[in-house]
């Protein structure tokens, strides 16, 4: 069956911008720069690589090899937005452009080769046009099928028709971008695509499953497209009229999420997964915008609902922040219609829910969690669902940032620093958002006060919180002065804090400020 498949692989052009996240962030090829994701190097510039920086390194290791390394924040939306002009200039030369990820596009090459009278003239034209119009360097590859073309682009190479298998054979098994499968195969002594391709396909299928069998086809240089992919029936498309029209990307985020959810539900109901999606929009003045995104280039699994939402958001961001302008002069107003069309679908062989409801697999349920949270965001608005990031700061409220679900949980530079004056751990389990009024009296009933010099008028004896009965104080410590923002008269506050334990066994964090006692938190 291999022979038939290889005949079907179409001549494909891949356009790759090396180290794109760094370039998109404003870095240059000849300056050491890196983008970190989850504390590890995700992309680095050529100059950084010369100094020994590698993908996957920890920040500290990278910086010790290359002290002048500039670290940029990770922002996939930015990568996609800055990439949009590149996609546009390629699209003007070759129709049918698909974005694999920001930094990599593939296009069917047959028509364009004929039009520009040869493969070399096409490559020359694309390379010159993209660098003239956008100023970015690109590396091109031409081969049969998009997997081989992508690998060819990494090597800046033209693979002759029918020679994809020979070209791929010496490449390491990791080129398949399936880390789990690669680890397993390496342990079995299968280190190159050629070794893998030499295994009988039926055995690969039986031992490793359909996705590995598909990877096996790729290693052979066969069609880089799930064999079962087919055009989606048109009624799977989802559409939303946008009223008022969307002009800013922050409003687009929520629409993207809702629509992605709808589309995903529709696909799931039919047991389908989407491997290529077309995002279409219409502006107020009737311009039609459309762009295709391909799922990770080479996978049978299909887009998850959050992956569809991300692509949609990135694309809208690209259009709204300049894409519309570059083709049609001035931006012509907002988007009035957004449509998601699954271009290619494949039977969903992914995770199925078990017969008895949830499958107890813990963290594997992320997809379900995301859908539940999207529903809650639909009820209450996107900002109502948050997770906390604990960072730097001396006041309890300052230490915690609540990040809306779906936004990046970034830590700020101060988070790792020591904060003098911070309360010792354990931290209070209940932090009151609105502090409660309290009265603290000495054993003789006189009010306890703290003066400017932090002298306490008498040892605290009793605590009364709001209108509750007073309780005896059995232990106390303080005052711990907290003088925040002393450089700013309007925001400056002086407070003296106390930890107190009472006869009923409870622990309290009290503050004395401007002549009044407050309960800030309970150690309950």
């Amino acid at each position, binding site marked *: 069956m291999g022979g038939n498949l290889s005949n079907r692989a179409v001549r494909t052009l891949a356009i790759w911008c090396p180290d794109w996240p760094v370039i998109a962030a404003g870095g240059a090829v000849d300056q050491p720069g890196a983008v970190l994701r989850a504390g590890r190097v995700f992309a680095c510039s050529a100059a950084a690589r010369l100094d020994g920086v590698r993908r996957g390194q920890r920040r500290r290791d990278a910086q010790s090899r290359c002290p002048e390394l500039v670290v940029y924040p990770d922002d996939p939306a930015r990568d996609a937005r800055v990439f949009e002009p590149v996609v546009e200039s390629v699209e003007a030369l070759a129709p049918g452009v698909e974005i694999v990820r920001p930094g990599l596009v593939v296009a069917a090459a047959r028509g364009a080769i004929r039009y520009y009278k040869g493969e070399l003239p096409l490559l020359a034209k694309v390379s010159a046009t993209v660098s003239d119009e956008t100023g970015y360097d690109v590396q091109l590859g031409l081969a049969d099928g998009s997997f081989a073309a992508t690998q060819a682009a990494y090597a800046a190479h033209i693979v002759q028709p029918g020679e994809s298998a020979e070209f791929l054979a010496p490449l390491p098994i990791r080129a398949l971008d399936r880390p789990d499968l690669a680890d397993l195969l390496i342990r079995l002594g299968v280190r190159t695509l050629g070794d893998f391709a030499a295994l009988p396909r039926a055995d690969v299928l039986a031992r490793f499953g359909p996705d590995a069998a598909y990877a096996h086809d790729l290693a052979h240089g066969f069609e880089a497209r799930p064999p079962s992919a087919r055009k989606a029936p048109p009624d799977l498309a989802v559409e939303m009229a946008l009223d008022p029209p969307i002009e800013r990307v922050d409003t687009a985020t929520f629409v993207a999420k809702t629509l992605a959810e709808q589309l995903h539900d529709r696909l799931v109901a039919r047991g389908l997964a989407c491997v290529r999606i077309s995002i279409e929009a219409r502006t107020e003045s009737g311009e039609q915008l459309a762009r295709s995104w391909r799922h990770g280039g080479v996978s049978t699994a299909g887009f998850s609902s959050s992956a569809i939402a991300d692509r949609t958001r990135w694309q809208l961001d690209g259009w709204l922040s300049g894409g519309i302008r570059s083709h049609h002069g001035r931006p012509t107003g907002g988007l009035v219609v957004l449509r998601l069309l699954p271009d290619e679908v494949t039977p969903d062989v992914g995770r199925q829910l078990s017969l008895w409801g949830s499958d107890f697999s813990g963290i594997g349920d992320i997809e379900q969690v995301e859908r*539940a949270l999207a*529903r809650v965001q639909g009820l*209450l608005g996107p900002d109502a669902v*948050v997770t906390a990031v*604990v960072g730097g700061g001396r006041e309890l409220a300052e230490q915690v940032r609540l990040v809306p679900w779906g936004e990046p949980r970034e830590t700020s530079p101060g988070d790792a620093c020591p904060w003098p004056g911070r309360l010792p751990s354990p931290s*209070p389990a209940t932090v009151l958002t609105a502090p409660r009024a309290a009265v603290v009296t000495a054993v003789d009933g006189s009010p306890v006060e703290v003066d400017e010099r932090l002298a306490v008028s008498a040892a605290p004896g009793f605590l009364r919180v709001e209108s509750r009965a007073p309780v005896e104080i059995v*232990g106390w410590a303080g005052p711990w002065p907290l003088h925040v923002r002393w450089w700013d008269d309007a925001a400056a506050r002086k407070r003296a804090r106390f930890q107190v334990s009472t006869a009923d*066994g409870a622990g309290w964090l009290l503050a004395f400020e401007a002549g009044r006692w407050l309960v800030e938190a309970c150690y309950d």
Partner: protein
Amino acid sequence: MLHAAALPPDLLERVGVTTFTSSDDAGSSALLPVPEALAGLFPEGGLRRGWTITTSGSSSLILALLGAVSKRPGWCAEVGSPLLGSAAAAEAGVALDRFVRVAEPGEQWASVTASLLEAIDLVVVHPPARAGVGDMRRLTARARERSAVLLVTGDCAGKWEGAMVNLRVTAQQWHGLGDGHGYLKAREVQVQALGRGAAARPRTTNVWLPGAGGVVSPARESAA
């Protein structure tokens, strides 16, 4: 052989040993793990999925339960306020990126809780004081259906319909504070579990909550 409980908890953490009673083998997947020191409160040594439990008066107790589920690794959520302290949550071992909060659900609190029970292992809810019996029954049924655990806290915890176990702190004492010096270091508490069915016999246990380093550890019987 070393006994796990004899080692300092942060060491166990560093070497990757988890101190849960219920091992995570396939047979016990119907139970959510609880910290070892609290396992004695539950007839099966863990939280049975589908249960609704109530608790009042101790946020640290809730955080200790969340911490064990979080390490599983599972998902936790909280609906309503006052919010549990985030710094304390992190100290109790809760993975904050898998702990979702909805502070102000307003009138929608029941729908929000029901949605979260669809996918999240342990959902903490602070219902409004006027919560109706219909909502209580519906949510209890939803938790059972979705094999999640619903943990009700706040003022209406006492009258919640269909709760399997009620956890409460019956005695507590903080250590570390003197007369004008020291700081709150650790607390000994006595926790009582009282429930229906298999959990009908009251069970009590003495624990450090939080103990040294923010984790929960067993305490002597005579304490508190």
